[in-house]
């Protein structure tokens, strides 16, 4: 039983990271109808920038994270601007364009930080809490709290602010949105940069939990995407549920199937997509993918 809960706690903390990645995917999808395949590599860049500023520049962790979010936000703006001619024309080409950016970002990461990774010490060095024999690291709680706060903020932004509503309108009908005076390109750029910022948040927080390397984004990215699908693509609360679910599935699969955990996760994920493509909280706001 103790092992069960320990696995659960570990799964939830990684799940919160997946949830943050999933939120980035979902936000871009919800505002543009596009799946950003470069998202995974933006996560990597975010993790590297945050850990570099934290370790080498000796900035406080929070400040290092802020720098990472700004840097990746700018990357998001660049990606959106370059691919803008394809927006609302050919989504398959746009998808391939984001893959191209992913390749570029990964190469840049290797050039700047080298092919080998580095470990990041936890910024919170308190003794783990012990609840009924289960060790809970304070850092895990912080990660969960950040994911929750990010979700609340995003939902508020999309539902309560004029800008958020406008961004969703663009995804539903870009022509109608233009007709009522929304600048579609600017709206997409904002969506993309917030998505990239969320990627940096996920990558930065994942640093102390995992090992920062040029390929860390690939696994985080695809699991984050699986989480987004599971929760219902485009749904922000769904991303949290999906992220935690994938995290827990992953943790138990790792315990049960050891090296084959990825195989199991992807097969389960494929089965879910085939049974229910709209996910658990599926909303049909955008019908493009």
């Amino acid at each position, binding site marked *: 039983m103790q092992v069960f809960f320990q696995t659960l706690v570990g799964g939830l903390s990684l799940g919160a990271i997946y949830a943050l990645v999933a939120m980035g995917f979902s936000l871009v999808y919800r505002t543009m109808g596009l799946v950003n395949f470069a998202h995974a590599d933006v996560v990597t860049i975010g993790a590297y920038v945050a850990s570099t500023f934290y370790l080498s520049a000796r900035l406080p962790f929070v400040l290092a994270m802020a720098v990472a979010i700004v840097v990746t936000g700018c990357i998001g703006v660049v990606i959106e601007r370059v691919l803008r001619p394809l927006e609302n024309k050919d989504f398959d080409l746009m998808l391939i364009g984001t893959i191209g950016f992913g390749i570029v970002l990964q190469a840049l990461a290797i050039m700047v930080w080298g092919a080998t990774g580095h470990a990041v010490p936890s910024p919170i060095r308190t003794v783990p809490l012990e609840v009924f024999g289960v060790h809970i690291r304070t850092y895990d709680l912080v990660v969960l709290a950040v994911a929750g706060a990010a979700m609340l903020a995003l939902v508020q932004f999309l539902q309560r602010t004029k800008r958020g509503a406008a961004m969703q309108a663009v995804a539903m009908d870009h022509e109608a949105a233009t007709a009522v005076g929304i600048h579609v390109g600017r709206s997409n750029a904002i969506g993309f940069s917030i998505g990239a910022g969320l990627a940096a948040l996920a990558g930065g927080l994942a640093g102390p939990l995992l090992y920062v390397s040029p390929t860390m984004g690939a696994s985080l990215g695809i699991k984050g995407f699986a989480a987004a699908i599971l929760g219902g693509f485009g749904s922000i609360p769904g991303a949290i549920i999906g992220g935690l679910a994938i995290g827990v599935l992953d943790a138990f699969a790792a315990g049960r199937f050891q090296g084959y955990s990825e*195989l199991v996760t992807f097969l389960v994920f494929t089965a879910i997509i085939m049974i229910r493509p709209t996910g658990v909280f599926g909303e049909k706001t955008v019908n493009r993918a």
Partner: protein
Amino acid sequence: MRYRVGALALLAVAAWVLPYRLDLYAVHVVDVAIVFALLAVGLGLAMGIAGQINLAQIAFFGVGAYTTAILTTRAGLGFWPAAAVAIVAASLTGLLVGLPALRVQSHYLGIVTLGLALAFVNWITNAAVAGGAEGISAVPVPPLFGIDLASEYLYYYLELIAFAVALAFGLFVVRTPLGRRMRAMRDDPLAAAAVGAEVPLLRMTAFVLASVYGGLAGILYAGLIRYVAPETFSIANMFLLLAMVIIGGRRSLVGCVVGALGLSLIREALADFATFAQLAYGIVVVLTVVFAPTGLAGIPARVRDALRHHRRYAAESATLQPFQPFDPAPEASTVRPAVPVLEIRNLSKRFRGLKALDNVSLIVAAGDIRGIVGPNGSGKTTLFNVVSGLYKATGGQVLLDGEVVSGTRPYRLSRLGVARTFQNLRLFGNLTVHENLLVALDRTPTRSIWRYALWQVGVWRHDHELRRQADELAARFGLENFVEAPPGALPYGIQRRIEIARAMASSPRLLLLDEPAAGLNGEEVRQLAEIVRSIRDSGVTVVLIEHNMGLVMSLCERITVLASGAVIAEGTPAEVAGTPAVIEAYLGDSAIVDAAEPITSESAG
């Protein structure tokens, strides 16, 4: 033509003497490049031709290579028997990876196939039988009539022949009925289904084709390197392969080959600057999708277009030839059978809360021209969508010649003799007018694709016959001047006529025309009326939705009026025009006077 044969012969000779000019290492590089070219052809077939995003091509490659390696080293099988099993294993993997394509498309399909490719890598890195991270070494040299294939020079010729055959087969597929259907499905799956393409089966076929090419590449790779390890089948290499196809031009197999060979050689030249090479090809991919979506293969056509700008204008101003009426049906068949061609019983269609169709009943006798009118949003197009199988009815039945067909898939309905046009024109944009007709003319079921594997001559003859029919049909509809043009470049009126020609290409018994006169000028409307009458006289029953009341009143024997999803009137034009409910719901009082006028006076004025 002679010029082409000459170029091909020259290329063959160049390929044959190439090894004499290369040192051992260079031959090795070329050998690996050919393997990637094979992979790229497979990926091009799935992505460029069939429009199925496939990020698992590298896994098909891996299944081919690993099956060969495992069977030869662990089970003691000979190389070629193992290779045969490997092809089967790869195509089964193709079926498995293709399954999600039945449910999802585009981005979702991309991520699922990518996930499955990662799952494969995960399996080979962990499974003891696959040798884990170290992989499998000491794969035996393939024996071949005493030819020593351990020599990479001789292996080059084996690869060259396999590659030439595979590429020729790929090009054959693209230019014959199967490839045309796939391209039609890529451009517009709905319209492809409506002209009889079995979209699910075609998607699976695309994945199986891709996987066979992947498997073949894997076998050749295992025989060449004689060592397999997980890193060869990584996602990084998948993306490299994708870059080859995109940069070369995904819609042209030759483009894919050029991209694969070029990028392989460049990567080898930059082997010491691998990261810079990766950065460079990533940037080139981004630039390609933004500025040259058709890749290198599309550049000649773009240059030609730019140079011949005024000649294309000349083609656009070329006029439609007059329509040549169909032969009227023989007397015997004009005796009306007792069973109506189309019968709709209490049909309902609900979209969540919205009742688009509410208990609609309708009988269309053979040889009728039936008009369906009604205000916007009254459910006319929904009715067509249900009858042609695009929507599933919530309740009620559709009968064709007395047989219940509701719930039948669109391609089956097309086979049963239902053809339709679309309100917003759904022509296959990247096919020529000629090919648009060819896709609909082909009535063979997709399952007869076994002939591609076993009886290519039959396929070729069939294609030849279809082309003859397409020329005939194009001439009948006066389209000879435009057969080689992409439909999107033609004026609207001509596109409308192409859609009717395409619908008639499937030799239907029931033709559904959705607003065929929308956007046409007076003269074109007159021609349309002539065409529709001729189609009816040839024995086809016609149902048309139309807002042009002049046309409806003069053309149709009976008219059905829909409002808010329900039938509010039915009868002859005169009867309908006098029904108070119709006047209230739709026509308005002053409209009657104009509407009752015959169409000839409209075109004269």
